[in-house]
């Protein structure tokens, strides 16, 4: 549903992305993986419509993202960025309620909005934090509150709709990482298109229907995890030997000889 064709992006004389083409399909979890600086976040921003590509086109349902009215776009895709802050003291529930902004024509929340907010709070496991000031929450709790905001935004969206997440597991504990990944799988089964940047390759192998592996701004593999996360490929990209363990995915061999020297 969201597709990039020949995407390129340059900043400060450096190529951040070069000729990247990929499509996010409804009902799938597509993981963006790759080393630091590979262009994962830049690609996500382009596919969110937030950054205009320097080359190529990004489109939603065949129509260029820049041709969509931001409001119409907001009713079809939600984005969970890294390190989202709130400028002023605000209850967690009010933060989640911001996710309903694209929906109500009149200023006040409708019963429909109330239901969407309650459902999103429950789904992100933050219902018990609803009355807390956002500023007093831990990093992981905040992350989940913003996840709930993104979920509230997509409640009632015309399908297919897309959820784009940039390193959503970064500040979560092991338990909440697992429940977030399971939630992403459930959302995809409901028909949502889920694009997620992940650093942990085991998490990627667990959650992904497909993995897009980026290196230095180029898409070097895109396919099912067993292909795109092949140990030989990963060793080339990360300069570190990997071993594939059944049911666990690719495991970096930190203790292996020469593991920490690239090449």
């Amino acid at each position, binding site marked *: 549903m969201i597709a990039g064709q020949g995407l390129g992006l340059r900043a400060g004389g450096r190529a951040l992305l070069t000729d990247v083409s990929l499509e996010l399909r409804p009902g799938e979890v597509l993981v963006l993986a790759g080393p630091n600086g590979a262009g994962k976040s830049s690609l996500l*921003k382009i596919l*969110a*419509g*937030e950054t205009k590509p320097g080359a190529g086109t990004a489109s939603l349902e065949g129509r260029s993202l820049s041709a969509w*009215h*931001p*409001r*119409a*776009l*907001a*009713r079809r*895709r*939600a*984005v969970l*960025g890294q390190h*989202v*802050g*709130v*400028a*002023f*003291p*605000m*209850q967690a529930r*009010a*933060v989640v309620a*911001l*996710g309903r*902004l*694209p929906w109500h024509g009149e*200023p*006040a*929340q409708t*019963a429909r909005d*109330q*239901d969407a907010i*309650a459902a999103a709070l429950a789904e992100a496991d933050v219902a018990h934090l609803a009355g807390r000031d956002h500023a007093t929450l831990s990093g992981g709790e905040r992350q989940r509150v913003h996840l709930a905001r993104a979920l509230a*935004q997509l409640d009632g969206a015309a399908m297919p709709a897309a959820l784009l997440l940039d390193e959503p597991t970064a500040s979560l504990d092991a338990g909440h990482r697992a429940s977030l990944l399971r939630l992403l799988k459930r959302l995809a089964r409901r028909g949502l298109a889920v694009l997620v940047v992940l650093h942990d390759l085991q998490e990627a192998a667990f959650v992904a229907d497909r993995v897009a592996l980026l290196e230095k701004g180029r898409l070097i593999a895109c396919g099912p995890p067993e292909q795109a996360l092949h140990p030989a490929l990963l060793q080339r990209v990360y300069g570190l030997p990997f071993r594939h363990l059944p049911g666990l995915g690719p495991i970096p061999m930190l203790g292996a000889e020469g593991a920490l020297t690239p090449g």
Partner: protein
Amino acid sequence: MHISRIAPPAARDLTAVVLAGGAVLLLAAMAAGVLLGPARISPGGLGAVLADWLGLAPLPPEFRRDAAVLGVIRLPRVLMAALVGAGLGAAGAAMQGLFRNSLADPGLIGVSAGAALAAVAAIVFGATVFGVAAGALGLWMLPLAAFLGGLGATLLMARLGSIGGVTGVATLLLAGVAVNALAGALTGLLIFTADDRQVRDITFWTLGSLAGSRWEQVPVVAVLIGLPTLGLIALARPLDALLLGEAEAFHLGHRVEALKHLAVTLAAIAVAAGVAFTGLIGFVGLVVPHLLRLGFGSGHRLVLPGSALLGGALLVLADLAARSLAAPAELPVGVVTALLGAPFFLWLLRRKAAA
């Protein structure tokens, strides 16, 4: 969850209650502003004047002085104070939301400094260089110069703060600081060349006063402040989205560039119109939105209109204090608002640091 269908959301109730309270407060302040002051109005005089205004009974000649004080002096003055305060409050709330900083002030966008520069230029050069124009414009020359100067400075700041068509809020902030410094320096140069009488005029203008309020100014200010204030209130939803950041506001469906330009322009008009007629009045735009946020949360549907109502009430009361405390002399109203505002600002800083 089904209870929420029956009970209206608490937030909606709170907004309605707070805004109704703000409106009552503003009306009460305006009533006090009209009735109280150094010149005492007897209850009989008040009754007679009201009866005359309502067309119930002709004004007995012994109450002519009371009618003049109420109708010619106090009523336009109170209306001006309410309008200017409302503009400052709403502009302050919008700028704090736009810059995502609770210490932002309408002055940050260069409008006050630009208006001051133009006003000082009008005071210093008015009689000589603009002699003909000054004669034609009369008492309107200073406000017109200040209004245009304020808008010009904001325009310059917006131009300087925008790089490659993208206006970064941090760049905008720095451009505002630079424009303020430049305007301040040029104002200093003008003061350096001014004579003693002009320096005195300049000093009083920069301290702010509503003493010059006249009926013919009221409709002009009502339009120039009322319309942008309503416009800012209409930006409540996008400003709410902006609480999360610029990228997030776009994700939530808002054109952030257009929003920034619109909010800055509306705030600049509202503030410039106020500064033009009443001089520099500080702290209203800073303190009022803050009080509301502390008490009732950060939602702009409450904070924006609430700041307009409360800003109006605060300036009406500050003006009442300004003309009553040292009667028959008048304190500059900017001194009164700063006397109230500065300690509050310091308390705010310390509270923030402690949190």
